[in-house]
């Protein structure tokens, strides 16, 4: 287990170093950094001095090392567009994305597992067929169309919910939260459904097929024969044994939720880091792009690592089984 953990940790570090290299190359080679910082009126001597001051004459590897050192301390440079430190901008917008992602993930997990178990137990009921058909549409609809559809229905036609923005936010020690006002909660509904729907269908289909598989097993039949309550058989015996693949997929999907938030945030003009990233691409704001890339990779790598470790917590068989550890 220790060897496995260490190997995974080493791999994660290599991935982060490579991503850092990509981010650094963006800084260094996309456009001329000095050109981006100085105005039209400049002398060659000024340019030369800035090159020297920024350390651009140092060997590549030294520059890369310095870049990583600054990034680890949370210093990602200054946004070309907003002329403020990137770290400040991200710290300001991150709460919006994190709250949206948390609510979406909660929705996806709750309804995904709930519907999955329901459709597996009542395999042939009309409600199950309805849920399955709707989920098929959910998978093939692009996220942004779902968002527009919801806006049209609930914001334009019915006028029940706001179509953009976060509503009123409360500032709790620098963290602006949606959770403390009614309009904040109302503003959360449509974006979180849009963001969570795809993940929900994925989890639901996975839980359903795993449940169907497990319910066929002998020990389920035996549990029924022992006269255990239906609820106890379904949840204590069946659902518990479907959890390993569900945790894997759900864990990996958490990262995707933050990445896909880019689309949802654009549709709903949600002031989070995803919207920031899209704007930075439009304006070729390299420091913001590089910082976003670094942050999201740290997150993805951390999630992958955590999911690997979770296997051991969930499935005791893996703790001794070496072939299982290679998964």
């Amino acid at each position, binding site marked *: 287990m220790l060897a496995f953990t260490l190997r995974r940790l080493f791999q994660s570090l290599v991935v982060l170093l490579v991503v850092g290299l990509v981010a650094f190359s963006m800084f260094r080679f996309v456009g001329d950094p000095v050109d981006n910082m100085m105005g039209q009126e400049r002398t060659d001597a000024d340019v030369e001095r800035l090159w020297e001051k920024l350390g651009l004459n140092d060997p590549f590897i030294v520059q890369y090392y310095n870049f990583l050192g600054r990034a680890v301390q949370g210093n990602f440079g200054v946004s070309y567009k907003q002329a403020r430190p990137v770290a400040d901008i991200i710290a300001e917008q991150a709460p919006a994305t994190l709250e949206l992602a948390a609510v979406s993930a909660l929705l996806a997990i709750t309804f995904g597992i709930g519907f999955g178990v329901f459709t597996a137990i009542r395999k042939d009921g009309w409600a199950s067929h309805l849920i399955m058909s709707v989920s098929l549409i959910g998978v093939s609809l692009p996220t942004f169309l779902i968002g527009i559809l919801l806006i049209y229905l609930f914001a*334009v036609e019915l006028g029940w919910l706001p179509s953009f923005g976060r509503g009123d936010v409360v500032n709790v020690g620098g963290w602006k939260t949606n959770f403390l006002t009614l309009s904040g909660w109302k503003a959360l509904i449509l974006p979180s459904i849009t963001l969570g729907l795809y993940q929900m269908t994925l989890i639901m289909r996975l839980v359903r097929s795993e449940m169907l598989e497990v319910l066929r097993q002998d020990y389920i039949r035996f549990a029924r024969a022992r006269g255990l309550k239906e609820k106890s058989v379904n949840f204590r015996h069946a659902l518990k044994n479907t959890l390993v693949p569900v945790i894997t997929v759900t864990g990996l999907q958490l990262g995707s939720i933050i990445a896909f938030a880019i689309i949802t945030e654009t549709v709903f003009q949600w002031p989070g880091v995803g919207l920031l990233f*899209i704007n930075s691409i439009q304006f070729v704001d390299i420091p913001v792009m590089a910082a976003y*890339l670094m942050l999201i990779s740290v997150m993805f*790598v951390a999630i992958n690592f955590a999911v690997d470790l979770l296997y051991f917590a969930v499935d005791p068989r893996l703790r001794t089984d070496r072939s299982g550890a290679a998964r």
Partner: protein
Amino acid sequence: MRDTITRAWRSDFMWTFRRSPVAVVSFFVVALLVLSAVFAPLIAPHDPFNPATLNLMNGFSQPMEPNAFTQEVFWLGTDDQGRDVFSTILYGMRISLFVGFAAVLFALILGVTLGLIAGYKGGWLESVIMRVADVQLTFPAILVAMLIFGIAKGFTPVHLRDQMAIWVLILAIGLSDWVQFARVVRGATLVEKNKEYVQAAKLIGRSPFAIMLRHILPNVLSPVLVIATISLALAIIAEATLSFLGVGAPPTTPSLGTLIRIGQGFLFSGEWWILLFPAITLLALALAVNLLGDWLRDALNPRLR
């Protein structure tokens, strides 16, 4: 000639095709959409990108109703500048399909080449290629495509950005999508390279290049075809998403995604048709290609069912 057609019609492949209504319908939907995109200049009632044919008085015409000022009738209505929505959809679909096909072709060539090399040569080359693939697979394809688009945009001179956008888009989506091809081809190559016909080809002294291209490649093509079809649906949706987000096809050469982005602006003022018809077209296209891909996977590889 006639003989070949009859033989093809009676083949197993065509038999399963005829037996699947979903596949037949999807095929005809895709064929109809592709043909109408290819022949857009002949079919479209207007050339939406020739300002000389536009009349601002035609702006915001309702679908199927005569315009209040000019009495002209537009099947699917017009947008704010009086552009016929039906025509913009036909031209937009051209861009969407072109980007989709080109991106998949690019991903296919790159992925198949790297997969063949990794599988046949092995060694450090294989480790490098597959490691890169693993890392890329950790990130969602759409995020990778956005990043590549952003970086490539940074490299293009400002005055060329709109013209180059389509090619940058193809590059970005293609690069975000090669991993699937490489993994499948490598896996199949590992199996094929130990078979006797490859040994025989080696013995008679064919070059590794020729063995990969002429002997192994034809035998690993059927899974590649399946992935290509499913990738096409994904590429079309990826293109639409990027264009919708404003980091794809520019308004001067709008794709379906750009049209939906434009249409979204008129949703609140009641001009629903500017958004709805491009959205339905995109949906039909993506869904039909997807269903066709699903069917193809079952038909070519019964073991996967």
